[in-house]
């Protein structure tokens, strides 16, 4: 894999999420340990109530977040645009998925899957890697506060958040997708993760 491509992806993620104090190098180590996947529009990535086994980094396309109403019907809560993270709430509090995420397109939706075991290696570290991951996850959650209240499905049912900032346009989607497609072998081969004793204990 070209490390430069991964670093560029991380740069954009940090910039677009406005992350404070994360480095693309630190984030790239986490992302490089993930698996790149591409799915067609309409594919359910995970369902509400499912166990939270991974965090996803959306790098191309959109993801529709849906909640089930009291009659069992799935209704759109919000739509995520690349680049961002999703599925991170379950990783943090170990609760079942609170919503269903569906690939929306346009075109294929690409994302990196970061399995829980991989994240555990990095999330608790007190170094550049851990800080970059924690802050990026937090920065991806902050814009979701109030987002549901802006949803068409919720409309006037709940008071709106006057300080909610809608996402910017996603003109860069195709550029991110182009970058992702240049990654031939999604294996980290130039950045080494050094595990501390605490990491090793956690792995056991």
């Amino acid at each position, binding site marked *: 894999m070209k490390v430069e491509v991964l670093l560029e992806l991380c740069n954009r993620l940090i910039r677009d999420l406005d992350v404070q104090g994360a480095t693309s190098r630190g984030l790239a180590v986490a992302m490089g340990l993930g698996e790149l996947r591409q799915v067609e529009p309409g594919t359910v990535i995970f369902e509400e109530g499912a166990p939270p086994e991974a965090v996803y980094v959306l790098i191309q396309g959109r993801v529709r977040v849906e*909640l089930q109403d009291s009659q069992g019907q799935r209704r759109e809560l919000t739509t995520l645009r690349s680049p961002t993270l999703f599925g991170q709430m379950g990783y943090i509090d170990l609760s079942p998925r609170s919503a269903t995420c569906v690939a929306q397109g346009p075109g294929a939706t690409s994302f990196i899957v970061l399995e829980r075991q991989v994240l555990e290696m990095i999330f608790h570290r*007190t170094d550049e890697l851990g800080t970059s991951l924690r802050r990026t996850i937090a*920065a991806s959650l902050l814009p979701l506060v109030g987002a549901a209240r802006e949803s068409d499905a919720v409309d006037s049912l709940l008071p709106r958040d006057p300080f909610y900032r809608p996402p910017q346009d996603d003109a860069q989607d195709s550029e991110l997708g182009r970058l992702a497609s240049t990654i031939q072998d999604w294996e980290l081969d130039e950045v080494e993760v050094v595990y501390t004793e605490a990491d090793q204990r956690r792995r056991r």
Partner: protein
Amino acid sequence: MLPGTTLGSRPGATVDLAAMPGLVDQLAALPLFRNVDRDALTALVTRCEPVRLMAGSVVLRRGDPVDAAILLVSGQLQSSGGSGGPDEPEVTAPVRPGDTVGAAALFTRSRRQDATVTAEVDSFGLRLTRGRFGGVHDSPALAAIERSQLAALARRLRNENRAVRRAWKAAAPEPTAAAPSGDSLFDRLRRLLGSAS
């Protein structure tokens, strides 16, 4: 931080540990720091600015830019969301020792404060400025604060999802009694329109 709401703090001030005996003990007693050693807590407080918050003072105001988070060490604050106007009821939540307000300053470069925070009683906190902590990667105490804030964010979003579900449920039409057998919507339409066959 609004002017006039703090005592004992000034920009760039650092905690004089000699003048605050027991501060590290206070921090060590917080569940947030149960796995953090005293050296790491000492390192944290030496980077912070102490803030004394007088009862009734506004600590952070919703919509204002935030350049620092405040870790509450003692006392109690109240966080208020919503404008409080007729269309937007105010939602309040207590902020207790170990909680952090203005945490967006730790995670993002320009996000604004999303709730107004006032001091319920005379309180004491540690101010973590973006400038001093933004580039810090090796602090176990800061990592503990970050993890705690992530958990708080996840709780908040789950609560929002629950509120959405409740709102949908409240807005849903009352369930109607099932139509008698042989009198389905299709049957009634067929009677009205006649059979196509």
